[in-house]
């Protein structure tokens, strides 16, 4: 009887494991397959705006026709059209540079928070998270206000006589970097703080005791031990920044687009769903493949050290 009970518990446990998988299938795999299918279709002036559309009434012959009509033409366009390639490269470059800036700015902040007296840490955390209480869109619009020709920034610079004439901030890459670094700052600070906060301070004392000056202790002990936080922060920022749409659209110029803007244009302005879908699929592959490789390597490293 006990065995039967255990068996039942085992079956319940198995079902429990199914829940996250079911979730992934329903809300990630199925939508992805739909997007993938659309990316292999051709644009059409119809409802929905692409062909072929699978009709179960057509039977097996209908399915055969449907599959035959799918083509990878959209992907060929992505490679041959300079606009797409430039857009991808620009997105990756902006994401890489702004993630680096985020890391350099957020690390000292996270370090200071982790070393602050315990009773201050809660308050400091709230201060970092506080901007989330306001809508993201409103905060980016606030930056439009600050960066525009007669905005706050230029007023301050003129008043302090740092510049003689108003500087053009808005619609430049500088504005994009300012907006992105500002928006993603908490996403970099929080994982770094989490990693640094749980570090044992006696390790720093041990390093000093063994003859290591403070600055070198940082390189030899603190930085390597905060690596999980660095990796988490970089992934958490880099991935969404590559596909960022709002910040470059509101703060950036119109000369070149980030890939998110290109996608938006294809989807809403040109109503070319298949082209937009292929852009999205390639973006996903560009981001997922390096992460999978990294995680695979991590897992192997862990196994080797066992």
């Amino acid at each position: 009887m006990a065995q039967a009970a255990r068996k039942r518990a085992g079956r319940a446990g198995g079902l429990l494991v199914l829940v996250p998988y079911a979730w992934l299938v329903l809300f990630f795999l199925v939508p992805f397959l739909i997007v993938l299918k659309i990316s292999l279709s051709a644009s059409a002036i119809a409802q929905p705006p692409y062909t072929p559309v699978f009709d179960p009434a057509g039977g097996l012959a209908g399915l055969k026709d449907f599959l035959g009509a799918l083509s990878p033409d959209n992907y060929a366009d992505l490679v041959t059209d300079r606009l797409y390639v430039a857009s991808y490269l620009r997105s990756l470059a902006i994401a890489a540079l702004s993630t680096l800036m985020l890391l350099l700015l957020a690390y000292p902040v996270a370090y200071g928070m982790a070393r602050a007296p315990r009773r201050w840490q809660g308050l400091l955390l709230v201060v970092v998270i506080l901007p989330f209480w306001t809508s993201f869109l409103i905060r980016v619009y606030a930056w439009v206000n600050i960066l525009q020709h007669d905005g706050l920034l230029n007023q301050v610079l003129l008043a302090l006589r740092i510049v003689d004439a108003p500087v053009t901030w808005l619609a430049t890459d500088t504005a994009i970097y300012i907006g992105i670094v500002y928006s993603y700052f908490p996403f970099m600070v929080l994982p770094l703080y989490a990693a640094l906060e749980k570090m044992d301070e006696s390790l720093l004392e041990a390093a000093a005791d063994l003859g290591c000056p403070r600055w070198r202790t940082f390189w030899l002990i603190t930085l390597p031990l905060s690596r999980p936080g660095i990796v988490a922060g970089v992934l958490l920022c880099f991935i969404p920044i590559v596909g960022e749409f709002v910040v470059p659209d509101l703060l950036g110029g119109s000369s070149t687009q980030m890939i998110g803007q290109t996608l938006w244009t294809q989807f809403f302005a040109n109503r070319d769903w298949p082209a937009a879908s292929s852009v999205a699929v390639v973006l996903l592959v560009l981001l997922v493949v390096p992460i999978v490789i990294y995680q695979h390597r991590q897992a192997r490293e862990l196994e080797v050290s066992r």
Partner: protein
Amino acid sequence: MASEAQQAQARTGAPAWPLVRFDTVTKRFGQTVAVDALSLDIFAGEFFALLGPSGCGKSTLLRLLAGFETPSEGRVLLDGAAIDAVPPHRRPVNMMFQNYALFPHLTVAKNVAFGLRQEGRPRAEIAQRVAAMLALVKLEPFARRKPDELSGGQRQRVALARSLVKRPQVLLLDEPLAALDKQLRHETQFELMDLQARLATTFVIVTHDQEEAMTVADRIAVMDRGRIVQVGTPAEVYEQPNSRYVASFVGDVNLIEGRLIMTGPGGSHIDSAAGVKLATAQRLDGAPGAVVWVALRPEKLRIATEPPSSAENCAAGRVVDVAYLGNVSLYKVRLESGFIMKVQVPNLTRSVDRSIGTDERVWLSWTPDAGVVLTG
């Protein structure tokens, strides 16, 4: 001071000078005084123990020596020179931390090599010294493991190797065995003594375990609330405690309060609250009527079912509790005054039926030199 140095030399065989000197050191943390105008000399080659309950300032003393704290007043001298301005990473002392503080991202070998690499030693020398040190603590097969793949005892030995490999003038051990189980702790105590004797390095250990301090140390400083109450060899501290605090902290003791009746060259007589008159071999400074305490170790009492014929000190009572511990039996005897005396008797024979049981009427006796009279 000279006689203390000579004593140290006689014990350790090493040339004796105060390698470490605390010169009226006070350390305050805000309102609390952790170390209170404390002076102490530790000699080269000694195995020295700082013993006391938690919060008595013994760890602070160690951290002052390592350089993690600076004295509020007074000076710390190492080899005759004040070191208060020297940062921890330049001090020729190394510390073994209570939680070991091993670097989790480095292998055992790299943990041990860390200190030597900071000195900028040649690669070959580092490799050779690390290998020798790992051999000394029997950890060679684990050189490439990470700390979280080791047992508690192995981690403890990595920490020891890491702090010894730089050949420090003084090795500081902060509760080094607290995290080990009892049997391993006993083994490791003897390994530590052996290591200290072989390397002839000065060891300063902080512990709250009096048995550990007695086992490993040449000399013990018993501490209480930021002050040193008594410094001496384990035997001195145990047999000649200078206060009720030391008598009761180091080992088990019966403390009997009483008044001095008379004192002279032949010894003293005391009228105790426990209802017995005590004769001791000690001559006291106090005037008759002064309040004193007699410290009697449980193993120095004899217990019998018949009144003793010759002993100068004797008290009758009834056994209220017997604890059989194998090698010894512990009796609690209620005297006629109600005072409970603890008596420890070695079990010399293998007989299973102990002759004295609960509720039995017994007589306790002890010689005049069995007890120590304390005035504080």
